[in-house]
């Protein structure tokens, strides 16, 4: 089935999210670039596939089965009811059956059957499969076409989470030296420079100075973005894209204005200049923990009272869900506050208390819609109430803009589609997978644009922002529509 990849294949937007007829092997030629030697070694993995990889892989597989309840349980209990088969955006977009969640899991399950269950005895009958180089190739292809968004898990009668299986598969592959360049490179940069982009402290300070100037030019007098200030009240940890990428930077200006108007002292850190945690993407507990540790070490060193995380999806999941387990407890911080706090929760609280004032008419040129990011929607909570991750961003948008419309029902809140680039897929070589994976979401965006005149696509995830900025033009939509919620706040805040 493999065809040469000459140019991007962009689906036509007709507003329909239809279930495709399956095309075996349709995306089998979409591969990640393999990891570089120095990155793998820096992460504690072998640099390349070596003799005896099979036994090593099976050893790690066994260890995971013995030390990870989710993987252990999910290997056994799938009944192949097929409820998940039409739920994954990558299947809907690529039509490749291996992108149906159950079939993606089957790639690992068939190896599990062969080595770890009695049915391995009836090999072909029960679909038990030896771990061969061929199978490993399949793993590398398809476990790198999953964005770990967990939409399938929502619809599974047992809650089987393909993300957990993808993470386990990536962990096994990494441990035998078969890594992915993008994620390992990013993690290596975090360890070297403190952020995913690899920007050293002096350059970061320069950028912050430029941003301060920009804010001043836009009428925000005296707004500062302090760095490495000991004794500040708040440590703000945004995704590093907020420092350098567009439209992410607009949100950083928003945060800065909020802190300025609220009169709360804060600081960013050059050591923990990244909220994102790619360790999670490769399923590595150790790397996730190490990356996460920087934030809390910095909170200790700078003697802050609270930690606030910027607009970033998986970063918020890592911070909210993993921090306390991996690097807690946080008794050295002020117990008045939730540790960590999401920036939207923080800003909305200030608005509600009247500490800062927003003028929603400042955004009257915009018709806003909101995309629930998968890791926030299905992997965490914002605020105190169940579902706060849905209500708080929406309330904040409505406080900052008058015109707000929801995307199509059934594709929002916990049922949201992934942007198509989460989980370490935000890299050029799999652009066709990213385009295909964004298709369901793009159908609903097109509908909102055509029917409601939507012209601002509000996000709280750095990966979503980057992905949509890239794919909007390919689908014939304006990339300028993409922005953060704090970009709206930045416009609306009364200085």
């Amino acid at each position, binding site marked *: 089935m493999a065809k040469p990849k000459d140019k991007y294949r962009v689906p036509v937007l007709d507003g329909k999210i239809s279930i495709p007829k*399956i095309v075996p092997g349709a995306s089998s030629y979409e591969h990640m670039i393999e990891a570089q030697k120095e990155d793998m070694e820096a992460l504690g993995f072998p640099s390349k596939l070596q003799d005896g990889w099979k036994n090593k892989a099976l050893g*790690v597989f066994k*260890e995971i*089965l013995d*030390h*990870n*309840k*989710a993987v*252990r*349980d*999910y290997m*056994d*209990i*799938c*009944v*192949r*009811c*097929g*409820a*998940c*088969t*039409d739920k994954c955006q990558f299947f809907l977009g690529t039509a490749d*059956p291996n992108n*149906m969640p159950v*079939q993606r899991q*089957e790639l690992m399950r068939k190896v599990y059957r062969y080595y770890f*269950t*009695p*049915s391995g005895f009836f090999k072909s009958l*029960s*679909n038990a499969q030896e771990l061969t180089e061929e199978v490993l190739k399949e793993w590398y292809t398809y476990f790198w076409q999953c964005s770990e968004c*967990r939409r399938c*898990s*929502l*619809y599974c*009668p*047992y*809650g*089987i*989470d393909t993300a*957990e299986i993808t*993470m386990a598969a990536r962990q096994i592959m990494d441990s035998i030296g078969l890594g992915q360049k993008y994620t390992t490179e990013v993690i290596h940069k975090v360890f070297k420079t403190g952020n995913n982009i690899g920007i050293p402290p002096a350059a970061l300070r320069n950028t912050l100075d430029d941003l301060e100037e920009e804010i001043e030019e836009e009428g925000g007098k005296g707004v500062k973005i302090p760095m490495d200030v000991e004794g500040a009240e708040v440590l703000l940890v945004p995704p590093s894209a907020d420092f350098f990428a567009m439209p992410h930077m607009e949100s950083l200006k928003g945060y800065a204005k909020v802190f300025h108007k609220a009169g709360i002292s804060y600081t960013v850190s050059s050591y923990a200049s990244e909220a994102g945690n790619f360790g999670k993407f490769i*399923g590595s*507990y150790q790397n996730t*923990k190490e990356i996460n540790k920087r934030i809390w070490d910095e909170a200790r060193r700078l003697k802050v009272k609270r930690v606030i995380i910027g607009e970033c999806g998986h970063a918020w999941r890592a911070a909210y*869900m*993993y*921090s*306390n*387990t991996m690097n*807690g407890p946080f008794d050295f911080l002020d117990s008045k506050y*939730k540790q960590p706090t999401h920036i939207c929760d923080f800003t909305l609280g200030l608005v509600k208390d009247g500490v800062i004032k927003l003028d929603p008419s400042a955004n009257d040129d915009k018709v806003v819609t909101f995309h629930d990011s998968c890791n926030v*929607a299905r*992997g965490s*909570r914002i605020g105190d109430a*169940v*579902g706060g*991750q*849905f209500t708080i961003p929406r309330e904040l948008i409505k406080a900052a803009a008058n015109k707000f419309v929801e995307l199509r029902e059934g594709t929002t809140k*916990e049922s949201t589609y992934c942007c198509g680039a989460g989980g370490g897929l935000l890299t050029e070589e799999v652009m066709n997978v990213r385009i295909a994976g964004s298709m369901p979401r793009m159908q609903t965006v097109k509908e909102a644009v055509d029917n409601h005149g939507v012209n601002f696509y509000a996000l709280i995830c750095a990966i979503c922002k980057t992905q949509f900025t890239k794919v909007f033009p390919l689908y014939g939509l304006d990339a300028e529509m993409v922005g953060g919620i704090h970009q709206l706040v930045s416009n609306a805040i009364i200085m």
Partner: protein
Amino acid sequence: MEPLNLTTAIYLLFTYSVGLIFVIGVVLRIYQYSVTPQPIKIMLTPAPLTKSGAFARVLGEVFFFKSLFKSNKATWVFGYLFHISFFLLIFMHFLRHFIYSNPLPWWYNIFVGIGIVCGIVMVLSLFLLLMRRVVIERVKFISLFQDYLILVLLMLIGLAGLSLNYVLTPSALTVVDNQLDPYMNGLLTFQFTNIPSNPLFLIHYTLVMLLILYIPFSKVMHFVGIFFSPTRNMADNPIEERYYRPNAKDLSI
């Protein structure tokens, strides 16, 4: 008392072995799932904030298949009908043992009638579930031998059970019933009596034993696994209450 025949001896051995394998298999699984640590909180949000809330969420899945209802209405209907009728039938088979007496209570025929309806519903829903696997392209693609095997096995059990009521004459069925009751009693009290020798009954009985034998090695273990699913059974309180499992190791999250 009638001496035990060879058929009974074989079936007694078979039944006890199956029972032993089933119990050991299921207990081992429960043990395995219980002792395997979950390294990190992974509940699918929005999730209940308390442990009891999370348990209620699991019960919602167990009793109402809530997530399946959200994802596929047809599968939910077929699956729900099957599970309900199957469980009613298991329950009624046990119940039968307590109400079977001489003379029979006046409502015994109504009781049997309900059982027959359940049997028909079970076989029909299984047939529809099988059709799904054959007709829907995606479901056909993901279906494995063991998926068909369990459906066919259950259907055969249902059909054999129904045939006892439809193929046998009422007097022949009474003979089976009169022998079955002491045989079952004997299994529990070790006062063995002969198993009913009717071939249709023996087919039904054998298939049921094969099913029970197969369960610990099959996807039917979902009835245990569902209670251990971390995306469903964990409470959303990672900040309020520190979750830490020292034996989880620094492996995969």
